[in-house]
């Protein structure tokens, strides 16, 4: 079984994003870029399934500008067998991304597609679900545990009410939550080895999909600031303030 992992490059989670003063976007110049943390977890899970003998090959794929090759090399250094780079200069919206990934799915015929449950830049949380739907295959979102046996995956999902367990027939799409695993650190020799691994590039336009970037972003704004609070010196002062606000 092959596993396809969608592996997005995003602004690093430690960066405090600033909105441009003219509201035309956020400042990304000179900002550190990293793999989407949820996609790292997806890749780690794929590698563990391969290490258990449940998968034969792990493919990482991204949709990004030409300068994203080091990002894919990072995925290869972590342990993926090969990489596919769908090249485009513009940011694609989730439905377009899902249509592009479907093309790779049709070509590669993976038994499992793993993606992060959301990308921490646009926070959409849509692509995995859209891919499963277009593909006509099961989805298990927000996974915190994945067991593969034969042609079935048993997946525990983190939902608002607790933990839900689903059984899905393969092939399927699974999106990964934080507690599924802890991604491994990349070792220096693996970075060297990754340079020799296959990395294929395809222009997004060559996939022959209909773009579906229907949403237009017209304005960016910083979030409303909370007004500066007060520091109290003891519990009595805290309780007095709470009572004053009618909260205690």
């Amino acid at each position, binding site marked *: 079984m092959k596993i396809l992992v969608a592996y997005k490059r995003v*602004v690093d989670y430690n960066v*405090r994003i600033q909105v441009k003063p003219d509201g035309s976007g*956020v400042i990304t110049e000179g900002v550190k870029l990293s793999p989407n943390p949820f996609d790292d977890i997806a890749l780690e899970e794929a590698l563990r399934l391969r290490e258990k003998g449940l998968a034969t090959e792990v493919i990482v794929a991204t949709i990004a500008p030409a300068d994203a090759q080091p990002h894919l090399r990072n995925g290869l250094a972590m342990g993926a067998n090969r990489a596919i780079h769908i090249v485009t200069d513009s940011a694609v*919206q*989730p*439905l377009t991304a*899902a249509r592009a990934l479907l093309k790779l799915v049709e070509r590669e015929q993976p038994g499992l597609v793993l993606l992060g449950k*959301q990308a*921490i*830049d646009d*926070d959409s*949380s*849509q692509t995995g*679900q*859209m891919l*499963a*739907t*277009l593909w*006509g295959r*099961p*989805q298990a*979102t927000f996974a*915190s545990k994945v067991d593969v046996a034969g042609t079935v995956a048993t997946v525990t*999902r*983190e*939902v*608002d*009410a607790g*933990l*839900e*367990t*689903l*059984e*899905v027939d393969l092939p399927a799409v699974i999106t990964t*939550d*934080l*507690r599924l695993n802890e991604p491994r650190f990349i070792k220096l020799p693996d970075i060297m080895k990754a340079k020799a691994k296959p990395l294929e590039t395809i222009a997004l336009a060559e996939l022959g999909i209909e773009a579906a970037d*229907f*949403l*237009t*972003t*017209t*304005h*960016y*704004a*910083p*979030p409303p600031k*909370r007004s500066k*609070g*007060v*520091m*109290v*010196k003891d*519990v*009595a002062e*805290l*309780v007095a303030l709470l009572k004053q*606000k009618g*909260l*205690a």
Partner: protein
Amino acid sequence: MNKILIIAEHLNGTLNPATARCVTAATKIGGEIHIAVLAADVDAVAAQAAQIAGVSKVLTVARAENAHALAAMLAPQIAKLAEGYSHVLLPSTTFGKDVAPCVAALLGVAQVSDLMAVDDPHTFQRPIYAGNAIISVTAPSDRTLVATVRPASWPATANGAASAAIEAVALDVALPTHTRFKELQSGKSDRPDLQSASKVVSGGRALGSAEAFSIIYSLADKLGAGVGASRAAVDAGYVPNDMQVGQTGKIIAPELYVAIGISGAIQHLTGIKDAGTIVAINKDGDAPIFEIADIGLVGDLFTLVPELEKALG
């Protein structure tokens, strides 16, 4: 004229309050508002949905396959129901986040996630980068728009004087068998539900153990509050995952939020930004939580929390 379809979220015959928050967003968009209830047993949930002010009709789809909220089952039915509607809204909960993109994909339309404000019927504000930027997005007005509604941004619409008409719908939609529900493990609690509680007390890593969390529960009970936790406390195994507050957990907007032993990573702050009053108790006076707290108290939580509980007595 907009025609808005809201998909009800429910569990064990009880309508989730997030549905009434979607009604508030729908009222702001403006138009005729219908709620769809997809369930095995629709009656109890439909009766609750019909009470919400501003709702003119409740559509019910009763099918055995709808016993559990599985996206693979619900999405094809919702896509069919969506015909003739300008907007389809679901709450931005794990239920809505799971199902809505499938509906959008079936309709071949875009989805706006986490709708937090309405500029006009097709222009909305939503957060990106963990709420560190708010964008205005415009969707084409000639297509159905699918959106998830960020519950913390919208108060719930109260019940109205009259009850909406309830109409059973039979849908001729073939459903897959490739996805099967096994079980739901739910922490039973008599405390107020975290997502709708007007007061919430949360504990962080500084509690140090599951046992020590008892002082959080005890304070919460004194305040009549729900109980939450930081990601660090959940990861450390002090409390179950459904108590996590933050970017990847629950995003909440209680009137009072008390953060105890929580340093305040931006991912946690994202989950509480809309709270009315934020109180922070932490031994580190430089902790980021104090940057957004309305009232801060520096000190040892193991001394201060029992003292606070007593003082509220």
